[in-house]
């Protein structure tokens, strides 16, 4: 029994040695012989396994690619969402560069940092301070016009009071200089949003909706000619000694991103053609609106006259007993509703009836107008 076990173990060891020898022989094959041997096995009995492995790897690659494609698609969608804001920011920066080139000197560019609170709707932090020449009460402007003024200054940062602040005031005038007043924030509401009020306009001065209002230069803080807003409508106030107007501001507080802070020395110098392009654009828009209104009014008047003429013609025809071909039947005409149907007459009779009716109308008109001794025409129904 023990001998059988020993011989069995010996056989196992011999087979082990043989198999290891075969394996080492395979390992010791030269490189140019390994590939043919492996290739033969891959092309024969291992072909199904090789195919399975290739398909599994292809599946894995497609899974990874799908994840990658999804990530790329998401990235593209995310970028597409930001394109509009980037375009807007690009436009604003271009405008700011244009403003800087027109100002030429005496300004400090700054980024506006908006807060997130009730108080911060009326103020904003600017990324420029006294180190670069910013002082308290320096005007803060954008390419569109008035934004606010610096209220507090730190070496590297400053705080600005936006025009929405209740304490903000700016002396203003109409673009043609015919009316002067004070602009302040209008109490915001859910329907109007942020608007401005122009107060203190004399009663003799009336401003049309759409008129541009600019800073007047009075008061010493704001230079003359910076756009503030456009007239929306006149509003009634408790004072009653002057006119007040509602303004649509040229600058929306939420859209302010990059601004210019005008230094004190620059604010006292003239601003030739700095904001003229904005003013010209607004004036052009106003002219277009006005001309559009005039054209519409003329067209409406012409249409009303044509309608009246057509009705008169139809009325005369129906009174004469005829009906305009294709027109309304006589019983539906306004003049014939309360009248009895006119008897049909021949053409000679119709002509005589028209002459009699015209004579009656003329006699009524002549009788209804009396000439008094002073030579003024008066209507008898109204008395003297």
């Amino acid at each position, binding site marked *: 029994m023990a001998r059988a076990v020993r011989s*069995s173990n010996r056989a*196992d060891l011999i087979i082990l040695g043989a198999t290891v020898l075969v394996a080492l022989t395979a390992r010791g094959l030269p490189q140019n012989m390994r590939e043919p041997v492996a290739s033969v096995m891959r092309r024969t009995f291992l072909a199904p396994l090789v195919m399975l492995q290739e398909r599994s790897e292809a599946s894995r690659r497609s899974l990874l690619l799908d994840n990658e494609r999804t990530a790329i698609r998401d990235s593209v969608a995310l970028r597409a969402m930001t394109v509009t804001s980037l375009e807007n920011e690009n436009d604003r920066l271009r405008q700011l560069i244009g403003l800087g080139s027109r100002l030429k000197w005496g300004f400090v560019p700054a980024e506006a940092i908006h807060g997130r609170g009730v108080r911060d709707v009326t103020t904003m932090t600017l990324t420029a301070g006294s180190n670069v020449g910013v002082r308290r009460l320096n005007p803060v402007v954008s390419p569109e016009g008035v934004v606010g003024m610096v209220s507090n200054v730190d070496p590297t940062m400053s705080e600005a009071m936006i025009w929405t602040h209740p304490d903000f005031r700016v002396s203003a005038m109409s673009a043609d200089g015919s009316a002067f007043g004070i602009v302040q924030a209008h109490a915001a509401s859910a329907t109007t949003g942020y608007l401005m009020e122009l107060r203190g306009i004399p009663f003799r001065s009336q401003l049309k909706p759409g008129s541009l209002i600019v800073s007047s230069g009075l008061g010493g803080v704001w230079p003359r000619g910076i756009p503030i807003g456009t007239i929306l409508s006149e509003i009634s106030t408790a004072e009653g000694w002057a006119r007040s107007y509602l303004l649509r501001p040229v600058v929306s507080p939420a859209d302010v991103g990059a601004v210019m802070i005008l230094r004190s020395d620059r604010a006292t110098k003239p601003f030739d053609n700095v904001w003229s392009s904005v003013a010209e654009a607004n004036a052009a828009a106003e002219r277009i609106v006005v001309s559009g209104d005039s054209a519409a009014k003329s067209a409406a008047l012409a249409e009303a006259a044509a309608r009246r003429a057509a009705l008169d013609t139809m009325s005369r025809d129906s009174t004469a007993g005829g009906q305009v071909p294709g027109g309304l039947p006589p019983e539906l005409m306004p003049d014939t509703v309360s009248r009895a149907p006119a008897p049909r007459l021949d053409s000679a009779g119709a002509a005589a009836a028209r002459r009699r009716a015209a004579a009656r109308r003329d006699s009524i008109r002549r009788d209804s107008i009396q000439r008094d001794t002073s030579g003024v025409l008066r209507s008898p129904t109204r008395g003297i």
Partner: protein
Amino acid sequence: MNLGSIARATATFLILVLLHYTLRPLLGWRAPMDFLVLALLLAAIRVRPAAAAIIGLILGIVSDSLTPEALGAGAVAMTVVGYLASWLKAVFFADNLALNAFFFFLGKWVFDVIYFSVEQRLGGIELIQQLLLWSPLSAAATAIAGILLLLIMRPLLEPSRV
């Protein structure tokens, strides 16, 4: 072993071989589980050491044929692991999951040690990193997969107690 147990063991062996060439490349882990080693170990505890060595040689040659530059390395490793597993089968006959997991872990790690030593592709710090980091991780993954398979395929995997 009767005919039924031979058929079950063969089926299990083929399933593991198929998993090696389907699930493993699909997962694509850095430390992959080795279903061929599992198949070898589960076959080795059912046969004599000499037969286990032959099965290991065949499995090794098959696996090496897909990586011709390492032809023979896998065969040597599989042969030795198969022989040792069959020789030690008495130790791992106990129906203990932890012991079986250790058996799978040890089998895979010994295989990797022999394989990378014979292959001689890696050297120095790379070899140490492979043998002390990635190989144990791969062995652990193989052990976990082996235990899961034992639980799922218990009726097929009942070893012959002849």
